[in-house]
């Protein structure tokens, strides 16, 4: 009896330690992925995957880590990309209903639309299919918001006007369902860009740029570039009031903008008195 307790204890200790060990490997893997050191991350992830119990959360994460590392490692080697694809598919099969499945599908979709080695061809229909799966299975998740944005991009980056309008309408539907989603601002900017570049409609472009601004632009956006671009597009579309407003913002809201001086000229041309330039170096020279 005592011997069997000892055996059980040893086996339990062994599982515990292997769990601990693979967790430590996973920590290191995460760190290396954070450093973009995919080569090292792949080695660690492979070890972690080997040690973890197939189907366990650790195994799923290690599989994702290995897939991502092989997918993103440089130089881009065909066999590594194929292996990554197999791993993503294996992970998708093994993780029904879990968020990690959505991540795997998202990354696989990105892979499908990339060209990584000689004669590699993007497969946009596969990407589209995967994005649609994510949207269907994880409809109220942030990953679905990302998938919706990527899917819309596939439609909008097209030479076919109908496809572009399809992408715009899809995005507007998504925004109706999820107006505060994480990528709402980017989705508005995507529409704004499509109206400007492809549909030659500066007024609509300005409308959606303003909506993007209202929601809030991504961190570290070069605001003077945004304002300058908006002012020019508005001026092009005959929306003088908006143009004036944004030329003024270039001067007053952005420290040290290279567009400030020219914005003053544009305002004068529009018959408006421009604000004074703000010199951030004036104090230093006093």
């Amino acid at each position, binding site marked *: 009896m005592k011997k069997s307790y000892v055996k059980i204890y040893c086996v339990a200790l062994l599982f515990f330690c292997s769990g601990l060990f693979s967790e430590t490997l996973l920590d290191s893997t995460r760190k290396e*992925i954070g450093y973009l050191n995919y080569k090292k991350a792949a080695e660690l992830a492979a070890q972690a995957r080997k040690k973890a119990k197939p189907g366990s959360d650790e195994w799923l994460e290690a599989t994702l880590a290995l897939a991502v590392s092989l997918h993103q490692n440089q130089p881009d080697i065909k066999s590594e990309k194929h292996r990554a694809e197999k791993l993503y598919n294996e992970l998708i099969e093994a993780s029904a209903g879990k968020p990690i499945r959505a991540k795997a599908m998202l990354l696989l979709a990105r892979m499908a639309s990339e060209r990584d080695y000689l004669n590699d061809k993007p497969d946009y229909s596969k990407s589209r299919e995967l994005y649609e799966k994510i949207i269907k299975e994880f409809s109220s998740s942030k990953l679905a918001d990302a998938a919706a944005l990527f899917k819309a991009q596939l439609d909008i*980056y097209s030479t076919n006007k109908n496809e572009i309008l399809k992408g715009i309408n899809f995005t507007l539907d998504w925004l109706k369902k999820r107006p505060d989603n994480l990528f709402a601002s980017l989705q508005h900017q995507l529409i704004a860009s499509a109206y400007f570049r492809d549909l030659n409609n500066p007024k609509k472009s300005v409308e959606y740029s303003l909506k993007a601004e209202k929601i809030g632009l991504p961190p*570290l956006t070069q605001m003077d570039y945004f304002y300058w671009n908006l002012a020019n597009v508005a001026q092009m579309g005959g929306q003088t009031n908006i143009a004036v407003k944004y030329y003024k913002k270039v001067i007053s809201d952005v420290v040290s903008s*290279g567009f400030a001086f020219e914005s003053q000229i544009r305002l004068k041309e529009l018959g408006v008195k421009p604000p004074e330039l703000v010199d951030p*170096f004036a104090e*230093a020279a006093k």
Partner: protein
Amino acid sequence: MKEKISSYLGFGILAAAVIYTVVTVFLNHLTYEASDVTTINVCHWQLETGFREAFQKLIDKYEKIYFEKHGKKIKIVQLAIGERGYRQYVNTTIIGGTAPDIIEKAYAKLAEEPSYIARFFVPLSRYVSEPNPYNEGTEFEGVPWRETFFDGLMSCYNRTLLDYYKIPFSMFTIRIYYNKDLYKKIIGTDVPPKTYQELLDVWAAIKEYANKTGAPIVPIAGSKEQSEMFRWKFLPTFFYTLNKKCDYDYNGAVDRYEAWRAFKEKKWDFSSPQLVYSWECMSDIARNFQDGWVAAQRDDAAFMFVQERAVMIASGSWDASSLIDQVEGVFKIGVFDFLIPTEHPVYKKYVKGQVSEATIGGGIPWSVTKQSRNKDICIDFLKFCTTKKNNEEFNKSISWLPVIKGCKLSDVLKPFKPEIRGFVGYFDYQISQEMRLRSQGDKWNLFSGRTTPKQYGDTLQEIFIRTGEDGYLDTLDNDQRNQRNLDRILSSYIFKWGAQTNKDQAAATESRIIQLMSSVQGTKANNFEHKKIFDQYKE
């Protein structure tokens, strides 16, 4: 006796050399490689007077503070390489796995191209978002490190990789230095010219004086480097009206794609007046350099000025201290800004103002290599160097422009204060490698008068038409690779998205994902647009 000495002399010299070597190696080992000393290597190319000494002062202060704080010895070693060998040094040490801990980032491909930067250098976002601990007790206490820089560190933000990879110590502007005493002797006043025409008149007067008196004096010292300064300051001013016509995406500049498209749409070519007049103007300026200036180095031009064989020289604020020191007691130096031909009877139609210095970036940029085993110490050292006090002291001692907010400029540097009134933007017609090589190479013939602007333009036009399509596709290929690299970074964040238990870290991850998705979206849209335009206009 003499025979004995001479027979043992050679052996004696050899023995002394060996003893000296052994002692030096032993002392170096004690200083840098002893087990209780952490050595940090910093490489740079700054051989200017005073830089290494000023930098060493910062190093000595930091080593002392570090020891007081941690009870551990560190040794920071400067490796001053010099410009000529710097590129090779950086590239080979990085590839060889022996890179210094901190590198002054420039020149080398591995330190400049985004895909290599991402591979070999430490991204600094999280560090620059934290307060600089060495600012405790000052007005910047609690302020994110990046916000203490004059531009919020925006010039160091890599927009391809969406992260910071360098920390600057100084910034630089360029001006024209002039010998006030000699100038007054020739012109009758030491007040510098105020317009481009006045500048040309002054130069003509100096030439006349030299001819009359036989004095070996030229108006302005020249070299390739000096002429490049005039090129930076003058050429973009001619392209203002072209930029307005050809800036399809309203980002303030005309990139290669736009230049190619506009060329196809016949909005410009190499006989456009903006280009031809810009070249004429540069040639007019270069006529006032000394004979044979194309073969001169920048040091030669500096010597000419210091030896009073040139009344003026164009140079940067980096030379202020060195030039002033060299002429002390001999003559007084004045400084004035470049004079743009906004009132020229012909050029004024195109030239509307000077180039703006509002977006001037930080210089002397330091990056931490991923190979460093002491990344945290390297970053801590950079934080120490960029407090207001330390940055002001460092730059004052070498008369350079500081980069931290609130730092004061010395009187010598006030004329170098960045001028924010002006235009930004560029017109990039360098569509292919051959175009770049020929336009860069042949411009010396143009500026030295061996080629006319028309001949130069005709040569470039032929190359542009012949190589434009291939060059366009090469540029696109490169941009697509950069787009792919963005995905590599994005994937690392998607991987950890939603898996972090720490709320702050999770929020930071999401913030980065939004930034990256924005950049991916923008880059992808641009690349798609460029491909579309190419298909539309290719032959």
